[in-house]
């Protein structure tokens, strides 16, 4: 794993570390190295804390306990409760299209660029275990039916971006950009009053060139798409965006959606909701009155 580093590059302090399977950057536009160091420490500490607590790949955290509760009642802490409340609100706002219990669909869908499409029977078998409405959430108690799982993967990185930014906001510097693998939040404009320029990478696996840029003074940006993550069979491209109600990929999904929001989580959630709308993604985003970019 690469070490945490802090360098002065192009007039900025650039702190880097790797977490949540993504390169993480904290850009501080201020000459004081100690401030940049402090910002980087706060961000890395918080991000590792969140990853440790909510990663589904660990066996020592609350998510593991929940997913292995086998139908028994789990009492969760306040932060987890907050995320569960949030997941419920997102489930309701998206009319059930965003569902933190949909992770079990991965058992049959392996998005590795290959061509192994699951048969209808196995999808049907797994989709039975999907559905927020099947679990019992009465804060602080959660009961999952056996076979169900929850997965905060759809919000975790954006949550870490916003939480890191919130902690950094206590420092006396505003010209900070937190960027975790393309999901980002700017606390304020650059020191010279100009916006941050954020380059957008295309959805193709091999593209290195930017397909556009976004100017950001303050707020969050998040991108959802199927870079590397799709299946191709008989000329049909299967998006990794699965509809939790059917267990099948959303038809005619856009390949990439980028949204600007007041927070990174909000931007990320709107981008995900939009992809779940299939071909209506643009209409959906227009109705939200947000700035966005889409790639078909």
């Amino acid at each position: 794993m690469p070490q945490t580093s802090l360098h002065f590059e192009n007039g900025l302090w650039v702190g880097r570390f790797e977490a949540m399977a993504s390169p993480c950057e904290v850009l501080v536009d201020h000459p004081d190295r100690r401030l940049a160091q402090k910002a980087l420490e706060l961000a890395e500490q918080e991000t590792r804390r969140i990853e440790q607590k909510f990663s589904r790949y660990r066996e020592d955290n609350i998510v593991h306990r929940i997913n292995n509760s086998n139908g028994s009642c789990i009492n969760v802490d306040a932060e987890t409760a907050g995320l569960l409340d949030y997941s419920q609100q997102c489930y309701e706002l998206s009319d059930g299209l965003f569902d933190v219990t949909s992770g079990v669909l991965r058992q049959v869908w392996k998005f590795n660029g290959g061509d192994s499409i699951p048969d209808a029977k196995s999808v049907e078998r797994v989709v039975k275990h999907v559905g927020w409405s099947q679990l019992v959430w009465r804060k602080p108690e959660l009961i999952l039916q056996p076979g169900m799982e929850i997965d905060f993967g759809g919000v975790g990185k954006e949550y870490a971006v916003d939480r890191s930014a919130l902690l950094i906001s206590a420092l006396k510097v505003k010209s900070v950009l937190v960027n975790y693998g393309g999901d980002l939040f700017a606390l304020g404009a650059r020191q010279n009053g100009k916006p941050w320029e954020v380059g957008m990478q295309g959805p193709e696996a091999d593209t290195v060139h930017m397909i556009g840029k976004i100017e950001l003074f303050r707020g969050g940006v998040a991108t959802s798409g199927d870079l590397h993550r799709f299946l191709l069979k008989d000329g049909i491209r299967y998006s990794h965006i699965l509809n939790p109600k059917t267990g099948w990929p959303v038809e005619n999904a856009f390949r990439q959606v980028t949204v600007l929001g007041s927070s990174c989580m909000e931007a990320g959630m709107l981008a995900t909701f939009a992809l779940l709308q299939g071909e209506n993604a643009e209409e959906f985003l227009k109705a939200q009155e947000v700035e966005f970019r889409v790639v078909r």
Partner: protein
Amino acid sequence: MQLKQPKSIRQQLTIATSSLLVAAPLQSLAANSSDNSDFENILLESSQLYYAEQERVNVFKSQVLVTGSITDESILTANFVFDTMSGSSPNGRIYSGNVTTSGGNSNTVAVTTASGFSFNANSNQAGADKSWLTAFDDIRTAYGLEWETELTQFTKAVLTGNVSIENDYDSYGTSGTFLWDFNQRRSTLSMAVGFSDDTIRPDAGIPEGLEEVWCGSTAIALDWLSSCEATSPFFYPDPADKKVVDYLVGLTQVWNRSTIFQANYSMGVESGYLTDPYKQVSVVDPSQGNKEIAILYEKRPESRITQSIFFKAMNVVSDSVAAHMSYRFFWDDWDVNAHTVDGKIRFDVSSRSYFQPHVRVSFQSAAFFSQAYIESDTKTDNPFADKPDYISADHRLSEQGTITAGIKYGRTLGKDGKFGIRVEQMHQKYKANLLPDMKVWIVQALLSVRF
């Protein structure tokens, strides 16, 4: 599966996201609390209060509060209050519903006092004697500034200045508070001094206390009067002045993670014109079944020292329940003693909204000069031969008990916005049938938004 008509869910999503981010524990932030946030936030709060006594006072009160940080260490708060009050309030004269009268209690006395303040307590309708009430209509505007600044890492100072202006009443006040955190910030000692200078200027002038209320150019002959202006040959044209100095010492103690205690002692030294120029006292004739035969202006002592002790405990019972209990004992050198117990319990129904039932009970003893009326001296022809030095029939100085019960609903809006609505009923009972029991409805709506 796609939505036919895309709907906007962004606002709800923003609220959900903001509340999640703000609600999550901020351990790391707390550890760095010396690097205080210097967000240039401006908080705007407004509240609308409606206070309605049964067939009596109606008050609409609008308040706007603006808070902003000037520097990292200082916060400046400005507030603006606008009240309109109308209705009628007890003027001190006997409440005829409780005094045996021998006919002829259909007296009407009209008084014109401060500009826009006129009253015509017509009581000619049988069973609707309102001579014990004075109608009023007043507007109050008040402005305040509060400046809070850190002195050292553990000490803070708060300075305030206030101006309040009514048609006939001005008040200017200032205060300074010093706060000291110690014991690893688990304890806070506060010390405050406040000073206010009030001026009252009724249109007609200040009446001489204990002198008879005249009607026009004659002493009131209650039997035949129908309508006139309350006057007195003893009006002083100069406004009257009242000064108050307040002192407070308080200690707030964080007991453990879920309990906070607070104890305060305060003292107020009032001097000057403490009488209410609009309050009167009836003179009744016992031989005529306590019929009202004259009216006097009230008179109170020219100094008053008030003291109070106050205890409060706040306990977080569980993640979603918090209880507040407080007790206040008030006493003064006018013999007024008052005990007040107040309890509130807040139930969070979600991370964004809560209900808060509220109950308050208080008992108060009467001031030594509180009297419902004066009995005329029947042995001599002078009905006022036996006047005391001071007298007031103001219900607020009489023996009484009050119960208030109500509920508040509050909700957060967005990241820092708040909305609340409070509905309460207050039931007041007076000793010696001075006044009928009073029932008051209070409805208050609050809104605060951060920019």
